[in-house]
């Protein structure tokens, strides 16, 4: 570790560092263990891709809602009762037979939390952030989403305050399914754009 003035001495284990900062801030009344536990539980149980899946399924069955969603993502998502962080400026982009959308944040980890939950580590780690803008066709194939060379790829780098959600194509052969059954087919990865449902 080269940061700071301890040449050659490894840092304290990250759990110890986190505990040290937590304790010292708790002693100043700025945080409590109970609050951390409550936040952890909230993120684990209240947020997740099930909300985004509900949005996608509604757009699949309701053409008017789909149009509204593509025109004003934030408002359309709120109308389904979905609230939460990181969707204040939500743009929804729709896949079609000739275009495939995929979302990345090359600078950090921007992601529409309220519809997808917290991002997975692969979305936040260097390989994805580095390569999705440089060689998206290769990377998508590598991640299990090969596209015909005639399909245009639109990469969305979340570099400001807009957040992006991909509306995947409705899979063939799902005409008889209910909205809830359709939602069960929608994966997180398909809404990031690295998979198709």
């Amino acid at each position, binding site marked *: 570790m080269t940061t700071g003035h301890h040449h050659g001495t490894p840092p304290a284990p990250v759990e*110890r560092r986190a505990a040290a900062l937590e304790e010292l801030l708790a002693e*100043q009344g700025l945080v409590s263990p109970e609050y*951390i536990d409550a936040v952890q539980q909230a993120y684990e149980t209240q947020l997740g891709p099930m909300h985004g899946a509900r949005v996608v399924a509604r757009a699949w069955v309701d053409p008017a809602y789909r149009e509204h969603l593509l025109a004003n993502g934030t408002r359309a998502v709120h109308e389904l009762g979905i609230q939460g962080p990181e969707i204040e400026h939500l743009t929804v982009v729709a896949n079609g037979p000739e275009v495939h959308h995929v979302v990345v944040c090359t*600078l950090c980890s921007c992601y529409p939390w309220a519809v997808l939950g917290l991002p997975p580590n692969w979305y936040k780690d260097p390989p994805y952030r580095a390569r999705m*803008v440089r060689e998206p066709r290769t990377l998508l194939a590598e991640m299990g989403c090969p596209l015909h060379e005639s399909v245009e790829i639109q990469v969305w780098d979340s570099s400001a305050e807009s957040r992006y959600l991909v509306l995947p194509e409705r899979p063939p052969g799902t005409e008889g399914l209910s909205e809830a059954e359709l939602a069960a087919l929608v994966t997180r990865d398909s809404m990031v754009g690295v998979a198709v449902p």
Partner: protein
Amino acid sequence: MNLPVSRTADTGWPAASRAVTLGSVDGPHDLGGRMDFGAVRVDPREPVFRARWEAAAMVLVSAASARAPNYTLSSFRYAVERMDPVHYLGSPYYEHWLTAAATTAVETGLLSREQLEKRAGGPFPLAHPPRVHGVENPGTGAARFTAGDRVRVRRWHPLGHTRCPGYLRGHVGTVLRRHGAVSLPDVEVHAPRRVRETVYTVRFDAGEVWGDRQTGVRLNADLWDSYLETP
């Protein structure tokens, strides 16, 4: 749900009066296009938090900045961006949050590094100090472009915080969409004032950006007015 990351808390970095430049390269976070990081490693069974300390790190960013003046989401990002490149690239995601939280606590006088290290029982690496004090990009505060305009991304290397991705600098794209006016991060991290200017989604051709043979790939990025110029 009480979420810990405030996007609007307007609390402050020490006021800056003069521009001092101490370095010459951009931060390790600006990863677009960097090669040789290898395969994307997906863990389909990954939990939301892999350990309690990850959730704690998230909350501690808010706790450590609660009394910091002029503190915004941009300040948090800038603290992460000032991490040593070896530390940044070699540590898990929430260690970035922990390091930013501890750095903020020390820089605002809430805690000392010695206190942290004594309690942790070993070295507690922090982010490097800012390399610039003062605003490098004062912004335009303007909305100079409209959808369909050809624009070039300024070729520059600010030492402080910016949200202008390095891989697009110097390249020409087309304004796809004009968003509203948004506070310019380049200013808000480095000064208590706010400059609001228009953000655009700009579309680039990947084959042009990288100078390779890829076709049918477009790159869309959201860029503030002052990041752009007429080609």
